């Protein structure tokens, strides 16, 4: 009896081990499958999975894989990988990181496809062609709850945001956690300091003074768009200066009374793609195909349908392409300003540290 019981148990254990091993085979085999050159896209775009899947479906023979993450972790990885990179294409919102990568010699130059760019698209193409805009949103859009405050009651200029009547009503994101927020701050510094060229010191001071006043007026800071919009939803604040697509997305889903207005100027935030210049030629050639495809009608369609309540709510940078949803106003009606990423990119760490010490924890 004892022997039979032991044998049964041994059989059961054997069967379990066999089943477990069979279950693990896919994971183990997929780990070993990555041989030869592959194109890895590092992306923070909500529609990136849809775009990569559509590209792979129409381009057999060279599979594109995706590292889908927030902008911060992606740039961390690129910096840590240094001169032994694994990324082939970087695709995130905002051009400041691309300008820094270009200065360090990481980006392939002259990658801009022959596409029919509109004026805003052209304004966001660098002279050396080291990165390409694929779409456009605005950072510093004034997202407000029309159930709490009417359009007529909104401030009309950036300076009016610091007025006593808006005390405790305004929110924004933390630039150390929210990718689009540093370009907003840089844009404000550029605008308020009347920067055109040369030293940025005066512009930085003007921006810091404005943010300090805003803080004294009860500015509410949250990490990212989600909690900032949450603060509007719970009536903790009435409006926030955040990315336009976040406002439109929530208007379409959880908070229909949400609206998006624009102070003059709003800061242009292009979705940007760049190619790793240190990759082998074959990989770079495939990367170029991918970039070209993104600016084709098929690529634009994948981008506009991949995340319909989020990142897909952008303005195309190509003539002839229309936004995915009518909730977006005509681009011509938005007073958009473009900052020079080569000037403002290198200041990101310094400005963000100042913000952390003086605005967020001051």
């Amino acid at each position, binding site marked *: 009896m004892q022997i039979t019981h032991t044998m049964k*148990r041994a059989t*059961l*254990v054997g069967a*379990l081990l066999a089943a477990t091993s069979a*279950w*693990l085979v*896919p*994971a183990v085999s*997929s*780990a070993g499958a*990555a041989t030869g050159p*592959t194109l*890895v896209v590092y992306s923070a775009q*909500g*529609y990136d*999975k*849809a775009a990569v*899947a559509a590209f792979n479906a129409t381009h057999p023979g060279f599979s594109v*894989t*995706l*590292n*889908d*993450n*927030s902008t*911060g*972790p992606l740039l*961390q*990885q690129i*910096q*840590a*990988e*240094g001169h*032994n990179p694994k990324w082939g294409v970087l695709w995130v919102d905002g051009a400041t990181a691309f300008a820094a990568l270009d200065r360090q010699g990481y980006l392939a130059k002259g990658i801009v496809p022959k596409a029919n760019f509109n004026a805003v698209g052209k304004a966001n193409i660098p002279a050396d062609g080291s990165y390409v805009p694929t779409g456009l949103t605005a950072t510093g859009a004034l997202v407000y709850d029309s159930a709490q405050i009417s359009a007529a009651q909104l401030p009309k200029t950036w300076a009016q945001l610091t007025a006593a009547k808006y005390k405790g009503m305004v929110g924004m994101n933390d630039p*150390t*956690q929210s990718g689009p927020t*540093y370009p907003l701050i840089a844009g404000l510094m550029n605008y308020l300091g009347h920067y055109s060229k040369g030293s940025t010191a005066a512009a930085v001071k003007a921006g810091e003074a404005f943010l300090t006043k805003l803080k004294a007026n009860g500015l509410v800071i949250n*990490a*990212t*768009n*989600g*909690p900032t919009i*949450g603060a509007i*939803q*719970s*009536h*903790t604040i009435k409006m926030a200066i955040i990315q336009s697509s*976040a406002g439109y997305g929530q208007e379409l889903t*959880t908070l229909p009374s949400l609206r998006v207005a624009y102070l003059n100027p709003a800061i242009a935030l292009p979705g940007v793609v760049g190619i790793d210049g240190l990759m082998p030629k074959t990989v770079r050639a495939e990367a170029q195909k991918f970039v070209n495809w993104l600016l084709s009608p098929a690529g634009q369609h994948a981008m506009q*349908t*991949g*995340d*319909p309540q*989020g990142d897909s709510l952008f303005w195309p940078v190509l003539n002839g392409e229309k936004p995915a949803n009518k909730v977006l106003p005509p681009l011509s009606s938005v007073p958009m300003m473009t900052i020079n990423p080569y000037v403002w990119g290198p200041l*990101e*760490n310094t400005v963000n*540290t100042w913000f*952390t*010490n003086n605005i*967020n*924890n001051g």
Partner: protein
Amino acid sequence: MTTVEVAEAPSRRLRVPWSGGVLWVILGLLIVAPVLSFLLLATSPRLFGQGRELFTLRYVSQALSGVTGQGVFNSLWVSLVVAVTSVTMATTLAWLIQRTNIYGRRLWPMLMWLLFLVPTWMMTLSWVDVLQPYGSASALGLSTRWLYGEFLGPFGIIVVLTIASLPFAYFVVSAGLLGLGSEYEDAARIHGAGRAGTLRTVLPMVAPALLSAFAISFAETMSDFGVPFTLAYHSHFPMATYTLFASISNYPANFSVAAVIALVLILTTIPPIVLQARVTRRRSYAIISGRAREVRRREFSRLARVVVSASVALVFVIGLGVPIAGAVLGSFMRNLGIFSSGPLHLSSVYYHQVFAPSIVGKGLSAPLLLSNQIALVAATATAALAFVFARRLMSRSAGWSQRLTDVLLVGSVAVPGVVLGVGYVFFYNLSFITNHVINLYKTLPLLVLALVATSLPGQTRFLAGPVSQIQPSLSEAARVHGAPRWRAWRTTTLPLISRVMLWGWLLTFAKTIAELPISQILYPPSQEPLSVTIQAYLGNFQLGTGTAMTVVGLVEIFGVIFVALGLYRVVTPRGWQRIGWSGVGA
């Protein structure tokens, strides 16, 4: 006889360095080399191309001043308070559950395990869901604004971190108490000791367990990222792991400042470990033997029994009941956190989106399967390695090598996941390694290695208590009666540790599935684990879908636990299920 002794001695001398060497290589590749690669940047950013200086101290002063310095200070005092509080609470709970007649003595340890499995970020976010204006509590007609204000501050931070540290401290202390038969208390009382005197006699016997619990609670709190990233951040109360994260989340990242903060986190764990090591090695604490006796329980009066049981229940309501109920309710609420004078608006739309998402290609099925496969491998490897390291740590004839291992393992508990993850990039993506040794970067095996590395230190400390209490005489007796080494281990040690190994395995399994920072950095392209997918929704202002995904993930984890416990009952001999410590069924 003499011939035999002479023949055995040299072989033992040869065997020990060999096995020790292998363990050092494993430790080196898993933890030491990657973490060291990161820490070296504190003074030598040029080594990994992160700056021009070959040696500088400027990042030290930068890291210890301003908000980052404040973060280090806050983490230190909060961790100290949390460690003391959680060990005190754990000791009280262990005594109540094991040595008194309170109600639910089989239930509480089970709940303690569940508490162990809940990540701190989830506990925090769920509490916020409950307490926030127009949150779950408000929807049920409860006004919680005052409590929300208190929760967002040091008070809430200490409460959550204490509850998060409680399970580990409880299991370590309860393992110590279990081996302590009532005869020791009786002996003290017979010799005239009062209650305080008995306590003074008995507590030192579980000193290794108390100190181990203190050291790990302190280190775990120092390295926790969930609370600093959520609760502490919103309270404008900077803590070290958050300032570390913030210093490398800009571009260009300041890895050197982050390295200094990481170094401080690791160094602060050394004093408690050294203290514990000194106490443990001064004398033997092995109290489990073939003659362990039944414990006698203190009988409370009916009223006292109800009051004490309710107090214990309150701990689990705070730590487990409210967060789980909050997450579940929140995942069904369409108007969670939205100003409304209307009724609760319930909907299952977020659960529909879990597998049919609004973002193309971002469903939960494939990530859930992949995370289970990864967790299965990582948990099994961790359990095996942790047992070997625990035996080594608890050896009474420990030399400098074991002591160094001890310091390294507990120091590693204080290493935040993001440091380990970036350290893996630095080390395993070195040109020399990828071109001449092995090219593992951005593959699943490397992700699994890193996940084993992050679980191994805690798991080792977890097993150290039970392993230290098994008297060598048990296996020696088996050997004397002719059993070969493997059979002696299988018939004496394995039965005693099988249950704790099973629970340890489940713990690593659950923590691996919930782990975010390492997975985010090291996951192979197009093979997204569960935690990364959920984070994409939570960070992409799709809180409802993210919360529903979290709930589905938790249900799946609890399902695996249920199945694993059922299999254990079927597969193992009955005797194994009755002996040894597992924290459950005291």
